[in-house]
């Protein structure tokens, strides 16, 4: 059962990811990505990460991708008539890398068991409550840093994208 779900999700994810890269129309690419996000979320569910699955859909599909589409529409971007001319080289490299990475990954070993981390209560993953608690206790500091990142992104986006402010003081 798990296998079926996995293979379904994996197949769709792989296909849509290729489509994202291959489709020339940005809108189609974005839509392919949207489909992928949903299936990644599904994969998360099979991995008992329900909270993340929800976040994936809300943040990625709901916010990020909409933002993308918004910009694509805003700038009325046409489909690309050609790929970058380094396609053959890049493709070759991609294939090589893919072979190598997969070769390496299937030989890999992982830690035999989860190390005991005192701060983490030994609970099953996928518990939204646990994640929330971890975020506001153990991971409070990264959380604050992440908030700063968002702050930077927000203000930075404003600074970069605002149009009409005359920054030359004395002109």
């Amino acid at each position, binding site marked *: 059962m798990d296998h079926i779900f996995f293979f379904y999700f994996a197949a769709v994810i792989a296909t849509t990811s290729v489509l994202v*890269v291959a489709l020339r129309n940005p809108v189609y690419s974005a839509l392919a990505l949207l489909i992928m996000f949903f299936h990644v979320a599904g*994969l998360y569910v099979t991995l008992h990460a329900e909270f993340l699955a929800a976040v994936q859909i809300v943040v990625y599909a709901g916010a990020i991708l909409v*933002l993308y589409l918004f910009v694509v529409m805003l700038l009325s971007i046409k489909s*690309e008539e050609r790929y970058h001319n380094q396609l053959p080289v890049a493709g070759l490299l991609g294939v090589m890398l893919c072979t190598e990475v997969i070769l390496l990954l299937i030989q890999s070993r*992982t830690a035999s068991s*989860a190390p005991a981390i005192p701060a983490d209560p030994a609970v099953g*993953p996928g518990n939204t409550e646990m994640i929330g608690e971890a*975020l506001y206790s153990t991971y409070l500091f990264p959380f604050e840093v*992440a908030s700063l990142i968002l702050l930077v*992104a927000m203000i930075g986006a404003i600074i970069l994208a605002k149009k009409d402010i005359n920054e030359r003081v004395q002109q």
Partner: protein
Amino acid sequence: MAVPLSYYLILSGFVFLTGVVGVLIRRNIIIILLSVELMLNATNINFVAFSEYFHNVAGQVFVFFALTVAAAEVAVGLAIIIALHRTNSSIYIDDLNLLKR
């Protein structure tokens, strides 16, 4: 666990490299950013799979933060794209070649 960990790894590896190739071959910056999202999602699959494998919440927490960062990057990236489009009226990255050599 029914599905071997390596399956997830191979899936994520594939998606990751698709993203890498996307960055290399697409000229539209927006698509390049989408490709980067592919790379980040591949990473997230890894984290979640390891998290499940280890019964460890840390991986999921990491994904949460990665998601946040991705969102922030998108915001900044799109702002840059808009600004670029305003000055260059192009969002093809190979048109950016004032600075070279």
